[in-house]
């Protein structure tokens, strides 16, 4: 073991000498990491990687090794392309994770192979603490799958079908669920026993991909994988602590092996923090909840794809809702009852069941966004005398029925937000007034996509405004002045794979801009019908996840979203403790509280290193806990 560690240390030194590792450690180790920083063309970067591995392989120490390992920030804004050296990689054998007991922790690393190997796998050991341990089952390793997506991949949700870019996106146990043809830049999806081409050009008409019934299945745990000297392989580790895990330091290993032969070992160092995270609250008012919502795939379509099989829909939806809860996505927009698309009794059953599934999977029942119709085109644009007799009465009878269903499942006190017409023009906004009034009469509230022009024609009747695009703290202040709330979408929509971008824009940047939450578009949608094909009528597939027969497949940027909301939970914890410390009549506690708040207030959410921000927040929280627990020796003021 000791010998192995020495080899790893040597690898680190060699890598630092020859590669582009811009790691903080490398700097403190006295190596100038930037010495050979490849800032050149893709070809040159490829050559740099090859030269680096060639040189290492020719050295005595590395002659018989299978690979070198680079630890990378798990939600880095670098793409870590398989044929380049990772610009922010640290060549070491130790993965470090710091997390609270009610959070999901993560780490990532790359293997840079010296030779071709197949049938490789990784065994995870339990993590041992001083007096207790965390079972190996708490750790889940997945491969970060690289595939070809539209030309704007990593950056934008707009489509550019004319180019294809290789990007990391899917987190898979079985890397062979997707086959990638690098020469033609094509992706193939394994559907049952066959491969489906999912990179076909725009001229091809495919129609819908029935993702409910298609046998697309990932393995339950990390499956054997291959190593290719031409490509780095990236891994994503998540940790879900069992209930009752004690705070403290734990250590374990990841053993990389093939056919019983050990190829290398990585250490895992985990710190479980001695506090839990609260639900996120807003920056402008610590008493107000920060909501995490998203537009949802159409339930009726899924039901139809399932050929009316309730059990199949239930299985999928429950897996999806549990997954959403684990990713801090707690208030998905509730699908409306599909009148006209399904027979009435079936539509009612599906509507009610869906609410029950959400509730049973642990999504909060205090607030429901959606679920109830708020007006329709016919009501807004036809004068009463032009409408069929009883049309409006029927509409509101249905509203009352749906509201009653929601309250019977979620609770009498549930706050129900009806969703207004999407991105309404001003005529439509004005046209909705009488109907919104009737909803307010019924004790409901309104959420509407909005922009500053709504302040001229509406706003007084829009309880929650969902703004598109760039964040505007000025707009937030105006809505808050009315006691209304504001959330955000399309900054960006789901789709761009860069996890740091999503973590920031739907996390700390949103929080610090005084918004009340995220209500993005869309959890999974492709207007052209095949969610596996990237182009979608001018946009890319909107997806936080991809569909599998038994649930959903996570993506790197979806993990970014979870981390973004966890950042807000840490900030909330810090603020709650700071307020408590400030209220104490003790100067040390008072100062600790003020320092923590000062730090958070000064943090530039649009550019700060979010991993460092997290670490600093933890440092402040621990200091605040110390101050509050009376370890401070200062006298009371």
């Amino acid at each position, binding site marked *: 073991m000791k010998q192995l560690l020495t080899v790893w240390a040597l690898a680190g030194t060699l890598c630092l000498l020859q590669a582009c590792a811009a790691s903080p*450690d490398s*700097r*403190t180790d006295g190596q100038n990491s*930037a010495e050979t920083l490849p800032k050149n063309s893709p070809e040159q970067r490829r050559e740099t990687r090859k030269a680096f591995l060639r040189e290492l392989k020719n050295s005595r120490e590395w002659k018989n090794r299978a690979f070198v390992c680079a630890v990378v920030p798990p939600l880095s804004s670098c793409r870590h392309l398989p044929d380049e050296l990772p610009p922010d990689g640290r060549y070491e054998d130790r993965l470090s994770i710091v997390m609270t007991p009610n959070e999901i922790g993560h780490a990532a690393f790359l293997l840079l192979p010296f030779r071709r190997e197949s049938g490789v796998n990784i065994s995870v050991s339990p993590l041992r603490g001083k007096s207790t341990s965390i079972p190996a089952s708490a750790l889940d390793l997945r491969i970060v799958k690289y595939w070809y997506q539209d030309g704007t991949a990593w950056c934008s949700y707009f489509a550019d079908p004319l*180019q294809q870019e290789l990007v990391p996106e899917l987190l898979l146990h079985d890397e062979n669920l997707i086959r990638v043809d690098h020469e033609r830049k094509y992706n193939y999806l394994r559907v049952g026993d066959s491969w489906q081409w999912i990179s076909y050009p725009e001229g091809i008409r*495919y129609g819908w991909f029935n993702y409910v019934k298609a046998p697309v299945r990932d393995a339950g745990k990390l499956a054997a994988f291959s190593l290719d000297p031409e490509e780095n392989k990236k891994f994503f580790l998540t940790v879900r602590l069992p209930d009752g895990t004690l705070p403290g*330091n734990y250590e374990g290993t990841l053993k990389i092996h093939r056919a019983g032969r050990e190829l290398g070992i990585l250490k895992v160092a985990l710190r479980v923090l*001695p506090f839990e995270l609260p639900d996120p609250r807003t920056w402008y008012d610590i008493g107000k909840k920060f909501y995490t919502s998203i537009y949802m795939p159409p339930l009726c379509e899924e039901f139809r794809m399932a050929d009316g099989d309730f059990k199949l829909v239930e299985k999928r939806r429950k897996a999806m809702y549990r997954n959403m809860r684990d990713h801090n996505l707690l208030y998905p927009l509730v699908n409306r009852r599909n009148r006209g698309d399904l027979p009435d009794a079936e539509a009612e059953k599906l509507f009610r069941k869906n609410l029950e599934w959400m509730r049973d999977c642990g999504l909060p029942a205090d607030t429901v966004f959606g679920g109830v119709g708020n007006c329709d085109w016919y009501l807004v644009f036809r004068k009463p005398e032009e409408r069929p007799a009883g049309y409006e009465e029927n509409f509101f009878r249905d509203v009352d029925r749906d509201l009653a269903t929601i309250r019977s499942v979620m609770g009498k006190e549930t706050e129900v937000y009806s969703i207004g017409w999407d991105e309404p023009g001003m005529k439509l906004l004005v046209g909705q007034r009488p109907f919104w009034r009737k909803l307010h009469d019924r004790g409901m509230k309104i959420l509407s996509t909005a922009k500053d022009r709504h302040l001229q024609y509406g706003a007084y009747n829009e309880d929650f405004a969902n703004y598109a695009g760039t964040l505007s703290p000025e707009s937030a202040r105006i809505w808050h002045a009315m006691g209304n709330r504001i959330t955000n979408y399309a900054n960006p929509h789901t789709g761009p794979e860069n996890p740091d971008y999503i973590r920031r824009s739907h996390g700390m940047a949103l929080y610090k801009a005084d918004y009340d939450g995220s209500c993005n578009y869309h959890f999974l949608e492709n207007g052209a019908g095949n969610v596996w094909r990237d182009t979608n009528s*001018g946009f890319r597939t909107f997806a936080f996840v991809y569909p599998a027969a038994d649930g959903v497949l996570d993506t790197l940027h979806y993990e970014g979203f979870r981390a973004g909301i966890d950042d807000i939970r840490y900030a909330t914890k810090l603020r709650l403790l700071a307020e408590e410390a400030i209220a104490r009549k003790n100067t040390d506690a008072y100062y600790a509280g003020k320092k923590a708040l000062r730090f958070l207030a000064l943090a530039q959410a649009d550019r700060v290193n979010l991993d460092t921000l997290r670490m600093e927040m*933890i440092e402040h929280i621990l200091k605040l806990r110390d101050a509050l627990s009376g370890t401070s020796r200062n006298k009371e003021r």
Partner: protein
Amino acid sequence: MKHHGILKLLFLAAGCAGALSAQAEKKDYLAEIQKHERNRNRPDAIAECRRALEDKTLDAGHHYRIALHMASNATIAKDYELAAQALELAAHLPSSNRRQENAIRLDAFRRSSREHRCPVSLKIGLSLLDQADLLTEKQRAEFFPQLIWTAAKTGSHQAFASIAKAKSLPEENALELRMIRNISGASPEKAPGIIAANPAFSRLAPNVRHALLQRVASALLLLNHTEAAEQTLEAARKLETPFRRNSCTVKAQDPAPPGAGGWILSDAWTLGGSGNFIPYDQAAEATLAADATAERLTGKKKNLDFYLKNTRFHLRYDSEGVHLFLVSGESDLEKYRSLNTGAGSLEIFLSPGMEREDYYQFIINLPDNRIDCYEKGSFSRHYRDIRKFMKSETLCRDGKMGTYVFLPWIFFYDVLPFDTNSSWRFGVIRWTPAGGITWGGRVHELGRMGKLVWEEPGPVLKRKIREKIAEHGIAKYSRDKGRLLEFWNDPDMGDRNFARNILAPAFRKLDEGIAAYRSGKMTPEEFAKTTLPDLMETDLLAEELRGSHLMNKFTGNSGNPSSEQGE
């Protein structure tokens, strides 16, 4: 006999009355159905149709009309199975004119197909085959390709056979079916040969051939003949006009004119520049309404020629950076100038490479020069905040707007074109009062953007560029270093352990690099590779070091284990 005659009359009268009564009932059914239809009450209309169809007193003609009502209502209610049943019923009832029936059938086929109800859609479509000769030519041109696609989507070879037998099948679609059959029956590599060997195919116009091959490829893909589909698409691609990317050579001019005024006073105001703008695709322009994040002026393409002729740009670089000057003619300039708004905007895209590079997007509103930047990533060592570096101004003169944009080399220090040896992607879209015109494709279409080819600078200019970037880096670092050390050494606010043991050594290393560069021991090229990135990003460097330091501290990798140990 007389009585017999009276009886006969009575029978006749009773018969007439009965007939009249039945007629009245029939009218009632129809009136009721139509009332529900007027009220958009499809379920009740369908229920009424069912009742009427079960009424044996109605004649076949009435049943036929009611069946059509039922099919129509079921189609609108999206109950396509019921619509198919009603149409099946109607098909077996006598009628002298089936045009309306066919219209309903076609509508049900279209709608069910649009809603991805392929099995029932196929059933309805196949039921129209016998009557397809009654469709107009335009309807047939839509119907048959759609039906073939639906057959492929459902994997129904039997349906292919039925379609092939249809009397009114257009020759082009018959050819399509033959190609699907022949290619799917052969090994994939034979697909190009099968296509080329077909004389009927060769006689078609290129655009028809292209569309046909795309349809064949779609069907092959749906039938899971993936390789054959790929081969067929390759054949289709050969019929496409190759895309020609706009290109612009960026020349050195040291110094370039400073500011919009400088450019206006130069020849560039009236001469030269890249001007091959084309109209923005109108259909694509309409879809931009769905982009809720940016506001763009769209128009009806009237007077677009004026804008096409009067829009161009110049690009130059010098030792300071990249200079872009856009000349935008405007016939109504005085109106917009007095309002300082309304003349549209210039939407600019820029990516410092042809692949693997993130891109920047910003919109300059005219003539007020208000700039909206749209980030396409999070700010990091490799993606920076363009607003902090860009300078821009718009001046109006001679019925034209001159917009100047300057981006310094310090913004691109790690992707200098003569280091990467790479061209850049660049796009300008001018949103005019008459609509959009573009040099480089649609918004966000990196694949169709123009190409900037960088003229290699001479050795003197290259050295000057490097020196200026280096001097900026050193000055910036000196400022940031002082601030950072002061903060982290602060006894109350900082962390002296971190400042002394981690930050200071990292800065010493950078100081050594600077000293080596200053003394000539390190070339500017070496300096740019080894030291400059950390000088330019000292704050980020300190954050990285700090994050790592705290992580080590928390996980017990710093020699100071935490107080808890799995307890």
